[in-house]
């Protein structure tokens, strides 16, 4: 343990990092209630910008699409990602190494490249569908959902794998010794044990889906603008107090998701047998 002036110096550096991390976001919340038209100046308290948020049809549409995309992509990615995690942590099979590597790629690839991949893929494949079947498909909510699932599977599986990895396997073995079928053992032993991990993965997937700008922008078509994409295009045109209010709403949603995932994590650490 370090003491004396070194500790004090390091302590103040730590405080500074916290200030750096939190002050900007907290100030943004404050300014969202400011009556001044200038986004960064205090001009007395008002709720006008939030009223504008409630009345703006475009913003409401974008919010609705965002939630739809997030929920659907999270549900599918959570099922697929959990299955992938179980396969990798509990089974040996042919092609496992390739699958493992493929599963890591969406996490490490820069979002601009992922966006380019989706744009080229949908252009090419929708064209192909058109020439082969005669159906004309267009990019829209569906393609956005498909692209979000593509990156969310990986994140879900990483979180669930971490949970499976740290888990005591004796309970699963005991269930097998007691003549439980594989399904029964999974349903009554494994699933309840990994549930916090699955929940954590799902919350991460929701967060990432609600966060994404670039991939969505490249995978979407008319009528499938999500809230982050809409806000991003607004910011590029010029900042307005309305953006402050919309940002704070997005902030509140993401903080709610963090709190939920912390609760899920707490649940997962408290029901673990004390090994530390």
């Amino acid at each position, binding site marked *: 343990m370090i003491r004396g002036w070194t500790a004090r110096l390091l302590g103040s*550096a730590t405080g500074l990092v916290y200030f750096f991390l939190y002050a900007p976001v907290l100030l943004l919340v404050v300014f969202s209630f400011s009556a001044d038209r200038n986004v960064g100046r205090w001009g007395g308290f008002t709720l006008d910008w939030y009223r504008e948020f409630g009345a703006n049809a475009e913003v409401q549409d974008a919010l609705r699409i965002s939630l739809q995309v997030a929920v659907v992509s999270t549900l599918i990615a959570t099922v697929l990602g959990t299955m992938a995690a179980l396969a990798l942590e509990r089974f040996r099979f042919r092609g496992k190494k390739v699958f493992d590597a493929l599963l890591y790629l969406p996490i490490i690839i820069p979002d601009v490249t992922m966006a380019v991949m989706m744009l080229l893929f949908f252009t090419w494949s929708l064209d192909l569908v058109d020439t082969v079947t005669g159906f004309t498909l267009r990019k829209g909510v569906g393609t956005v959902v498909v692209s979000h699932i593509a990156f969310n599977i990986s994140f879900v599986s990483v979180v669930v794998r971490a949970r499976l990895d740290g888990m005591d396997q004796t309970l699963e073995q005991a269930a097998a010794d007691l003549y439980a079928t594989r399904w029964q053992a999974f349903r009554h032993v494994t699933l309840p044990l990994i549930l916090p991990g699955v929940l954590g993965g799902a919350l991460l997937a929701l967060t990432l889906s609600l966060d994404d700008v670039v991939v969505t922008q490249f995978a979407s078509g008319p009528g499938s603008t999500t809230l982050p994409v809409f806000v991003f295009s607004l910011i590029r045109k010029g900042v307005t107090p309305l953006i402050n209010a919309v940002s704070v709403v997005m902030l509140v949603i993401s903080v709610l998701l963090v709190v939920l995932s912390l609760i899920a994590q707490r649940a997962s650490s408290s029901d673990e047998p004390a090994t530390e």
Partner: protein
Amino acid sequence: MTDTVHPLTAHERAHESAESRRGFLLALPAYLYLLVFFALPLAIVFVYSFATRNRTGGTDLSGWNLDSYGRLGDEIVTRVVMRSFGLAMVTTIVCLLLAYPFAYFVSTRRPAVRGLLLVGVMIPFWTNFLVRNYAWRVLLSNDGPVSELTQLLGLGETRILFTQTAVVLGLVYSFLPFMILPLYASLERIDGRLVEASRDLYASSWASFRRVILPLSRPGAIAGSILVFVPSFGAYVTPAILGGDKKPLLGSYIVSQFLTARNWPFGASLSAVLIVVMLSATLVYFRAGGRNL
């Protein structure tokens, strides 16, 4: 892997292959999904990078050539790449300087306090990325709070919005947790007895830090640096919000090839290069033991 040394009985072998089939079937849906909606798109990027742009701004996929790669040597491209590289390096170094004392301090606290301090880092990390960058746009705006503060201190107005300084600030703000977490992980697992031993051998606290702690935390520093450098190098959202249009960075340059310049093969070849850089960095990361962090 506990591969049995003695030969398996027929029954065991049958059991093993049934298990293998089960595992494969369990992985299959995600496997197929990623093959179709990730690996195939990745391959298509490479295919497009060898294609030709036609007069209407479309792309001819027949007649592969290396023209787009030839353009990578153009002065404008090297300037964009070097600029992005420089900014990503500065961002990484600033993150390292901010994160090291922080991670070191946290690792010397009691376990309960440690957990709390780390959660404090994770919360902003989970908070909406776009909003975090937008917050700086507000802070740095004309007559905004930062400018007012510097005026109050007699330093004059702050006019750094739409400059590279603002971009670095935004990138550091976005990716600092990526540096803190692996650094903390490597500092936390240092055996305290090694530090004690160095002190017993009359090393000063500075010497024991430099000769014991610093080398042992290197894997964390390397892992953190890669985790910060890679997304900074290809960043698009942060420069778009906080940077100016005059000096494009790699991310926005790639995007502009698709949205405005409509030169898809060239954009694809730039993306291909970015993918290769990212993959090499990742290999280094795993070599440095990043997976265990």
